[in-house]
């Protein structure tokens, strides 16, 4: 049976002061507090701003027990410039490598938008990107349903890259639910099921959702199923609005009877 680690997508939300962090907690203390709650975190700031090694190492020092997953910079997934992406990949690689050397890198998340179609050029690009970041454990999330086919799965298995399992609103043409272990790492992202605000709103509204107990029980079964075929299962709640992700993540930990948070959980 695999190790199962649960956390949230991001930790640095001012609106979490109160519902999650004690009143008066300063931004610089968020990570310390977070580390007492969960064994892993998915870093999302790295999508908007290219991370730096010193910055990531400082975060590790701040909360040594945390296993970090890190979202790839947008220049590698959303705003790809064929002329310069290799430079961006190299910069990203050197920033993340120290986390891997310290043994605290869970995965690098490559999240591709709906506009990233399943066509030869993009397939070639993905192959090149995976080779460029090949030393890291990689997890790929596709928002375009065309990628969810047997050839993609075979290609990911060959490269030992994880296909991200998604939970999100069931909207026409959104990706199908697909839990398939394509590598020893299983990676699950829970975006909430807010259909009404998914399109045409900001991220705060899009991820404004609280999973019910019934829904969490069903998610727990999915996690158990993934744990059969993987060695490590990383689960991240992205429904961050008002700290709902934290409430759900804690409840899921309880449902799965996962132990207290600490370095031994890595």
């Amino acid at each position, binding site marked *: 049976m695999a190790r199962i680690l649960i956390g949230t997508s991001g930790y640095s939300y001012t609106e979490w002061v109160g519902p999650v962090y004690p009143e008066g907690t300063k931004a610089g203390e968020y990570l310390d507090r977070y580390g007492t709650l969960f064994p892993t975190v998915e870093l999302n700031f790295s999508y908007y701003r290219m991370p730096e090694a010193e910055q990531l190492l400082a975060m590790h020092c701040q909360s040594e027990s945390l296993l970090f997953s890190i979202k790839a910079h947008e220049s590698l997934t959303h705003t790809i410039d064929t002329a310069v992406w290799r430079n961006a990949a190299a910069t990203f690689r050197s920033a993340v490598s120290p986390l891997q050397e310290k043994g605290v890198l869970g995965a690098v998340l490559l999240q591709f938008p709906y506009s990233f179609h399943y066509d030869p050029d993009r397939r070639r690009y993905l192959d090149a990107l995976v080779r460029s970041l090949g030393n890291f454990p990689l997890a790929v999330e596709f928002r375009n*349903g*065309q990628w*969810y086919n047997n*050839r993609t799965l075979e290609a990911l298995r060959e490269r030992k890259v994880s296909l991200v399992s998604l939970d999100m609103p069931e909207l026409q*043409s959104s990706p199908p*639910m697909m839990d*398939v272990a394509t590598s020893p790492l299983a990676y699950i992202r829970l975006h909430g099921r807010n259909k009404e605000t998914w399109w045409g709103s900001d991220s705060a509204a899009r991820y404004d959702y609280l999973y019910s107990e019934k829904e969490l029980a069903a998610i727990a079964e*999915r996690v158990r*199923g993934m744990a059969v075929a993987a060695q490590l299962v990383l689960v991240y709640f992205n429904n961050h609005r008002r700290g709902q992700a934290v409430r759900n993540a804690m409840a899921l930990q309880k449902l799965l009877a996962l132990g207290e948070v600490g370095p031994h959980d890595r």
Partner: protein
Amino acid sequence: MTGDQASIIHVNVTNFAASVATSRDPSLADKAFAIAREGSARRIVIAPSRRAMEEGIHAGMPVATALRMVPTLSLISPDASACAKAESAMFEIASRYSPTIQHDSGGHMYLDVAGTTRLFGPPVDCAVRIRNEIHNLLGMEPAVAVASNKLVAKIGTRAIRPSGITQVREGDEELFLARQDMALLPGVGPTIGRLLAVAGFSDIGQLASLDDMQVEALLGKRGLALRNAARGWDTSVVDPTHLGARTIHKRVDFSEPAGELEALRAAMISAAEDAGLDMRKELLACTAVHITLFWADGATSEGKQLSSHPLVLDAEVLEASWKAMQQAMRRRVRIRAFTLSLQRLLPAKREPDLFTPPGPTREERLQSAVDATRLRFGPATLTHAAAVFRV
């Protein structure tokens, strides 16, 4: 996951016999082995283990070839009793979630869970639990798919196999199928597969996008059925009768009791052709043909032909049917009706072509033309020459 209407679940334990062997002996989990019968002159691999699959071994491959590829490959005899127990246990698990289960052999099951949401939650949650229970209780990792019909669910499990779970939402069938490999489409066997490959078709969506005229130009009129399958169209229901107990049944009633052998043979050919077409549509074969004659004086007699190998093609079914009919014809009385049943159904071992497309041989061209005509204009429009004597 909620809100979907798709309620058909397909459970597929890939390489079932090998999975059963592993579940009984977990030390086999990381070993390359294959299930193969001992003693036969041309041994073939019945089911490879997962590790053997990774080495390129597949079902149907000659054992000699497999051993050349993987000299350390272990060979294990099939254990019919263990497989039957595992089948039964799978059925028991599925029975907790739906009364409507089509339990095909070889680790395949279809469930219709429509109307069970209040009891068990959305179909996909139900499917996850079934998958987990099969693993926890039986030690096997199935591929499971939820879709709006059996065809799409089957392609779903083929897409993700050897294990995992997926859900194709109602309305997203064409999108899901579009980029799947053509070889996953039921009915695309070696012959059609080669033909489509030569035409540059690799994805199911390419076939789905053809209009009627384009399909007919490429595959003949019978290709329409395959094109419709590529679009995810399937109206077949989940049939709770166990596959081994199911039959494909045809009955012929003569307007006047028949006494001439030619007329009887003509009617038998017609019935056998119809039954064979129905069987191949479901990707099945049979190993028994049963004939019952209803005599004009009210008596009945029966004949049965058993086959050691699966019967798939019209010629095979016709030959067995005629032998069974000859067995049953023990009297010199007129016949008012007869029934023909294809029995002991089983999944066709290799993916059979749904029909034989126009090919290089005379027989293939003839078969294709016959099938295309019968599908287009109805089974009665064209049949074997002997059948024209039918009254």
